[in-house]
């Protein structure tokens, strides 16, 4: 069964917040691996 994706204003705000959090997480994760390598 397939569900259609609907985007409202709240969704866009939440997605933008998630995107920022993911960018921060990627940056920390890269630093974490570098730190481990040292």
């Amino acid at each position, binding site marked *: *069964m*397939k*569900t*259609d*994706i609907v985007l409202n204003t709240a969704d866009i705000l939440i997605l933008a917040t998630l995107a920022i959090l993911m960018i921060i997480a*990627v940056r*920390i994760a890269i630093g974490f691996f570098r730190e481990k390598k040292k």
Partner: protein
Amino acid sequence: MEIKIALAGNPNCGKTTLFNDLTGSAQYVGNWPGVTVEKKDGRMKNHKDVVIQDLPGIYSLSPYTLEEVVTRNYLVNEKPDAIINIIDGTNIERNLYLTTQILELNIPVVIALNMMDLVRKNGDSIDIKKLSNQLGCKIVPISALKSEGGQELVAEAIDAAKNNRLAEPPHVFKGSVEHAIAHIEESIEHEVSRDNLRWYAVKLFERDEKVVEDLAFDDSLMRHIEMHIKDCEKEMDDDSESIITNQRYAYIQNVVDLSVVRKKARGALSISDKIDKIVTNRILALPIFAVIMFLVYYISVTTLGTVVTDWTNDTLFGAWIQPAVQHGLEAIGASGWLISLIVNGIIGGLAAPIGFAPQMALVFFFLSILEDCGYMARVAFIMDRIFRRFGLSGKSFIPFLISSGCGVPAIMASRTIENEKDRRMTMITTTFIPCGAKLPVIAVIAGFIMGGAWWAAPMMYFAGIILVIISCIILKKTRMFAGKPAPFVMELPQYHIPSGRGVLIHVWERVWAFLKKAGTILFLCCVVMWFLGSFGIHNGAFGLVDSENCFLSDIGNAIAWIFVPLGFGTWQAVASSLSGFVAKEGIVSTMGVLAGLGDVGGYTSSMHNAFAAFFPTSIAAVSFLFFNLFDSPCLAAISTMAKEMGSRKFFWFAILFQNVMSYCIALMVYQIGGLAIGTVAFGPATIVAFILLAGLIYLLFKPDRSKTAQLKVHEGAAA
């Protein structure tokens, strides 16, 4: 101007404890020799222009292992502004050997006489003034563990560095030895820097291979130096290295006789010796170790651990966070699929492994108490007897011990093993010991199969040790790893009451690393897994689909055939295993996402039911556990292994060996175990499992060709 002060001393004399105290760092401290394997820098508290450098422990400036080379090269070639030479006050004779060498380096030296609290407790006394006069440099009594004397010590070191206050070299060597060294100094004074002249002259007299190789003097100069050495050897009737060692110890004995008064007669048994009589007893040692490890896991997993874990799962996540977030998102009008991403994907995915953090913290708490009090150093000594039979040195036990926390420092700790073959073999096998990240996997599988049996975790710990032994027996019989294990000599530290701060730092470090991983790698992993588990192409159109049609199900089903013989051919189990290659915590987190844990109220019971649905039978879940415990480690450990292995061939061999081994073990567990309990029908995979078992037994008991060849050589020589 920046001042660099290096901390140098024997292994396990308290360098890292002092480093943490002076810099406010939280470097890993262990009560056994060889914890620090790399130089570490930190800025002094309240003196940001002072850089304190923690160096790996070294017994002398004649290095044998990789981390000892780090220390010697730094002290001799890079020269810090001052050296704080830390001496264990309870073992002053042995520690002063390195001191006599450091004083020859022409660098300002301040001696930190550590463990003075223990010296006082033993009823001994050290005359600091006399000792200082004898050695020609300042001495500050300290207790790094109790943070006593650190500030005064650094003030002296800064003063020595700023004023370039060099120590007055003590008169260690006598008569013809001093005469020969003076001749060598004269011969090489135009060849080496004046600062290192004395040190190079002594090393050349000792015929130190590394120094001779580095200096690469021409033949005529070397012949001239050799003539002076031989003249001295003839006169002293001994070889040059022994002459230097003997004269250093004779000098040290004289210094100690003048400045140290001991209460107890030499040879009398200390409390540590009395405890060791029991815990390192030939018969009792192993049962005591087994009982202690079972107790650690029993208390951590069953009693206190269960209470805290249940609260985290059921109350914190199940009753507070998840409903609050869900209601909040509904209130602001978020779409259903986005609520699913956050509640099921992210919260559900993170809740599963984070719920086990309290149990993990308790395991680390008890293990660090055992390490800090000195017991684990004894275990390395006990294990040497067993490991040696299987061709592995007891030195390998230190990495195995560290591996119960994390594989990355464990792989790095294998640097203390001199023999390259043994070192590589240790790196390959060390991640078989379940690390902290694997504890949630064990707890989850034990939770729904064995009703949360507490003994599952210690059993897996011992299964890891057994697999290490099996692997070493097999690997030692191959040309790549053949050879005698390196001799294991380790100084056993005195037992002491662990410092609360040290234990808490250790536990916090591990838990923080875990939470950091949860907030970053696992968070990303959850989002990716939720996307792959919720989206797909159905009837030619991309969008949200049922789980049977999602991308993850397509990927899982495409490679599920590989895992069908192991019993867990469901796409959920396969996808969870795949995420384990990134980070082992990812296994339980992916299971949480795929089980839609955000939808459930009480996590603990629902989690077990949801996870159990991924496995057709209990034995399939056990096989899944074995595969995920023993396959190649997480990305961080793999990248460390690639760097430390120093050979692409050995690195790829390690990855292949770990995965093949884990696959074979899981196959045998599922097929043979399943056949025994009647849940698996006899088939081609069962035949393969029996062949593998026979092959394993053959490899374990087949004679070692290298040993047979050695025996023949000995017999030939005897005849």
